């Protein structure tokens, strides 16, 4: 039985993301669907069974299964419902959610699921990557237009800006000349794109949002394929992130003497390399930014010369972490409640508040 509203897919047992995306590229018809397609991407440490359990706990029902594609439904209030297809690629840990539901207030509810659970997170797109994708598209498609964009600058960013470089800013632009304007804004105001809407005449119109949200407004089969390939480019990053996460550890190690055993708790951190060195003079602002982002400082110390900073914090979801910073590197040490949420959120925090070009070390 077709649920009204959610786009139709062929009733078969899809066995892989590749198969499902091939099917969509071939068959998804934007004209035949009541509203545009939004794809949300996230990452998770759960296996498919655990993920399903978590979805149910969050309030989603699994209405039907198409192999690894699940049709899910959630009723938030009696009138507001969202339906979507969900695909969990266990190989990569990426979760894709496809929906064409009208009410865009509902989409944040799905993001909520990604954000609230401790072993999932939405797959945000780091500024460097979004910028790279943007300029690659511009290079590949001569006639491509940027119809609107949002671009941001981190406070005291060292990305060059001709106008008042010390300011934190966000620019929202709408106009057919978005392509030129984006370049100008980057040059004058030192901003990096955060959300961009592209139009390739006769092929596709779509939007990429750094929160891991992709919107497909209209296009041909070629356009759909391009759209899905861009999603792939982003989700490939997920592998790196998950690898880095997998290398972090918290263990209680038994240290033995001749007749006794001592338990030593050891934490192995993830490391973020900064492109813009962090200075001792910036630590106050850094601590304030941590506070604003929901981290509670238990103790912190900072020493000058170049920089040594160490802080024990409680994360936004209540687990204890330690961070250490020297001028070029920030390390995040997990405690016994090591989880993906804390790892992803911290990296996102650094990208948004400290250094847009920071990279997780692999």
């Amino acid at each position, binding site marked *: 039985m077709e649920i009204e509203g959610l786009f139709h897919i062929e009733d078969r047992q899809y066995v892989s993301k590749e198969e499902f995306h091939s099917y969509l590229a071939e068959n998804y018809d934007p004209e035949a669907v009541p509203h545009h397609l939004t794809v949300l991407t996230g990452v998770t440490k759960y296996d498919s069974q655990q993920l399903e359990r978590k979805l149910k706990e969050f309030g989603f029902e699994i209405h039907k299964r198409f192999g690894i594609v699940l049709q899910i439904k959630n009723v938030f209030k009696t009138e507001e419902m969202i339906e979507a297809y969900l695909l969990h690629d266990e190989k990569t840990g990426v979760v894709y959610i496809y929906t064409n539901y009208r009410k865009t207030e509902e989409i944040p509810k799905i993001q909520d699921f990604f954000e609230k659970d401790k072993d999932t997170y939405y797959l945000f797109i780091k500024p460097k990557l979004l910028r790279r994708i943007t300029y690659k598209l511009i290079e590949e498609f001569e006639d491509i237009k940027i119809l609107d964009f949002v671009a941001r600058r981190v406070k005291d960013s060292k990305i060059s800006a001709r106008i008042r470089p010390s300011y934190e800013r966000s620019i929202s632009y709408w106009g057919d000349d978005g392509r030129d304007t984006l370049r100008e804004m980057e040059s004058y105001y030192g901003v990096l794109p955060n959300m961009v809407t592209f139009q390739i005449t006769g092929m596709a119109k779509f939007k990429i949002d750094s929160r891991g949200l992709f919107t497909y407004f209209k296009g041909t089969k070629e356009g759909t394929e391009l759209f899905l390939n861009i999603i792939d480019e982003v989700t490939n990053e997920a592998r790196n992130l998950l690898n880095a996460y997998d290398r972090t550890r918290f263990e209680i190690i038994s240290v033995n*003497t001749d007749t006794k055993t001592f338990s*030593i708790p*050891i934490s192995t951190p993830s490391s973020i390399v900064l492109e813009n060195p962090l200075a001792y003079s910036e630590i106050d602002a850094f601590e304030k930014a941590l506070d604003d982002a929901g981290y*509670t400082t238990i103790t912190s*110390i900072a020493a000058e010369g170049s920089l*040594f900073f160490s802080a024990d914090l409680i994360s936004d979801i209540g687990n204890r972490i330690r961070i250490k910073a*020297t001028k*070029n590197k920030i390390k995040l040490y997990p405690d016994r409640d090591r989880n993906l949420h804390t790892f992803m959120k911290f990296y996102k925090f650094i990208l948004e508040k400290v250094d847009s070009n920071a990279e997780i070390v692999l």
Partner: protein
Amino acid sequence: MGHKIDYKREFRALLQSKPSAGDVKKRFEELKEEYISQKEEELAKHIDDSNYHDKIMDVCISAFSPGSICYNNLGYEFISTEPLIERTYKEEGIKNFDLMIINSEQKNAIFVECKSSISNPGKIITDTYSAIEICHKNKEYLEERVGNKINSMEFVICLPPSHVDHLVREIEKRELSGKIDLKNDSLLKIWQIDMFKEEPRLQLFTRIKSREKPFQTQHIDAGLTKILADSVEITDSEILIKTHPSSHPMTRGKWVIIEIFNLNKDCDPDERIFTRYQIEQFFEASGTISHYASEELSKPLTESFINESLAYGIIEKVEGEEDVYRLKIKGKKIDTILSNYKRAYMKGYLDRIATKVAMEKTVKEFREKQPSLF
């Protein structure tokens, strides 16, 4: 030799003197305010210094933790913070080192004293040699507690490179003058720890001019000497405990407050109740402190927290119950509670001392100005 004046009693008596009671009180409050505003910054700095010292300890420990070169390749294991501190609660005059490292195969123990700054090198050296003597006296006790025979003991002061010269010069002075006997087989060794590098480094410092023979600055284990002399990169991994027995009580107290908060997560925020036993369990748990006598230490650490917190109005006893307490600090979320705790602690701490000092000063002033009152 004069008798010791009981300023509290004198002050109370002064307050009874009808005509001047108002003046006495006013002056007392003034002096108290003055003292608090002078000492507030000093207290904050003292806590900061203490926290920095804790960090040096953590980084030094990491150099001897599983995953590190010293641990994996040479068998030097960090075993405990503050060896013998458990004895300081019952016995006078015990000074202890910050860390104890054991090589269980070689039966070699290294005791490390971490220093974040050197303001009085002479005193540091004297104190450290006292601590060395105490370690020797307690060798069998330590062997029993850590479960390993100890055939040799070495003693180290570990400090940032910027302070090494200052300390070493004083050591050289004392060794050249004979104040420290160069034939002493427990000559202090020096490690410098550089925390500003991306990957911190630990290095054995050997340029001590008063010592002609290499063995005087080197470790017994040539392998350890070689690795440390070349400067060893400290492993990425770090020991993740909460606090040390010698951490500043306020810093240590924060972790207890978090524990109380967690124990009462689903309760009425005005009724955050806990027992002495729960706090003792907290200190004993692996991951809170890292000490061979954590069970024993849990009692004085808990006692200290409870006493200070009662005195500063941070907690109160629950009526009719033995060893049950209620948190008086308000706040729905942990960040509010922690910041209120810090404020209450600093205020309580300063208030207690300021009261004592102001009482004394008031009495002294009034003795001078109005001796007829006495």
